[in-house]
């Protein structure tokens, strides 16, 4: 059998190839985020200081909702033609599949963030008063927090009838601590306050939930 890392890489490349050909997830995410930026920019007319206060919340809520679109697509393509069964009957470990899906979603959401952040900066005239490089750390930790739980709960909800509704119902409550940390850390960096506590909270959240998801994923994959 291939080593688990080889299977993870093969599954990740396969998913990137499928997305490159179908563009199901990335188009929906981009369109949704663009709408949020434009609608909010017309709804509010904040000055520079107000922008720094509200931007963290706006950005992360937009990315959270957009991420759900990608997360639903992740497993939907495994259900078409029941391809997931082909994985389940193979000797490949369940966690290789989970990690590949989580990393793939991380890449999609990171691409979205890279494309949308400049628009947020322009529309809300944002300029960080604190160390801007910390925003990159918060973005990476926050994105992982969203996708690791999102990938797990999307897998849990794939066999339910209304999975598009089920995923946010499962994901949003459990993401509240991470969302709070992301928003507070972003606001703290933009307003020049210290974000250390929130970053440590995000690291802890990521470690706890990544471990939990890896421990439980095989049970979820084989559930009927």
């Amino acid at each position, binding site marked *: 059998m*291939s080593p688990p890392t080889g299977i993870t890489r*093969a599954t990740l490349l*396969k998913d990137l190839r499928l997305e490159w050909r179908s563009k199901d997830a990335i188009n929906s995410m981009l369109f949704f985020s663009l709408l949020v930026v434009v609608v909010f920019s017309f709804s509010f007319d904040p000055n520079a200081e107000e922008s720094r206060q509200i931007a963290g919340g706006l950005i992360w809520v937009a990315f959270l909702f957009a991420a759900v679109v990608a997360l639903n697509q992740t497993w939907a393509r495994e259900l*078409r*033609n029941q391809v997931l*069964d*082909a994985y*389940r009957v*193979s*000797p490949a470990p369940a966690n290789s599949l989970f990690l590949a899906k989580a990393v793939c979603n991380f890449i999609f959401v990171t691409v979205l963030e890279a494309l949308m952040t400049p628009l947020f900066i322009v529309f809300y005239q944002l300029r960080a008063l604190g160390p801007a490089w910390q925003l990159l750390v918060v973005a990476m930790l926050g994105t992982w927090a969203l996708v690791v739980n999102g990938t797990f709960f999307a897998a849990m909800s794939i066999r339910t009838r209304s999975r598009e509704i089920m995923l946010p119902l499962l994901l949003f409550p459990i993401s509240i601590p991470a969302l709070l940390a992301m928003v507070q850390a972003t606001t703290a960096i933009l307003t020049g306050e210290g974000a250390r506590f929130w970053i440590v909270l995000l690291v802890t959240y990521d470690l706890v939930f990544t471990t939990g998801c890896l421990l439980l994923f095989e049970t979820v994959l084989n559930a009927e």
Partner: protein
Amino acid sequence: MTETAPVISVSNLIKQFGRFAALRGVSADFAGGKLYAILGDNGAGKTTLLRTLAGLTQPTSGGVTILGASEFHNVCHQVGYMAHPSLLYDEMSGMENLAYFARLYGIGDGSRCAEAIRAVGLDPELTRPVGQYSQGMKQRMSLARALLNDPKILLLDEPFSNVDIHSATDMVRLLARTRDQGKTVFVVTHQASLLEGVADEFVWMQAGKIAGRTRELTPPEATA
């Protein structure tokens, strides 16, 4: 293991879906190196039995022993499974699909994929995505995926459905050759006449039980 020793033993297998019992105490031994045709009306429990043998459905009670192992995961690399849906990604070509599944079984050799595709009468050079294949081509590619890991046991659910008569006959010849190589083949089908003179045994299922086993394509009295 001698050729006549059972490669699969099923004892008092019961599978409930809520209040519906799909399998109602199935017990049987299946010797190696034979081709079994599993027949019965819709809802007789054929597919549930096959999915249970493939480790995809957990029995409510009873046990399955495959190649001496009671845990499917220990022998999954020796089993090939083909379902009614294709278990293939529509957006990728046949070769791309097989190359991915080969990695799950630790097969890094691309020539093995090409060999499996040729064995079912398709061209490995075909670059069209599987989604554009005819139903018959999809079925044959699905069979190639099941044969990829050179399994000792082949579990096939409706391999001839939507396949033209010439292709179906070719598939039957391939299955007979596979059996002649000492492998054990299970075919769930409604087109039993295709296997007349080829199958070693016809297993007749009715209402979640094995109603009888015959050498000829003649229903036992219990199912008549």
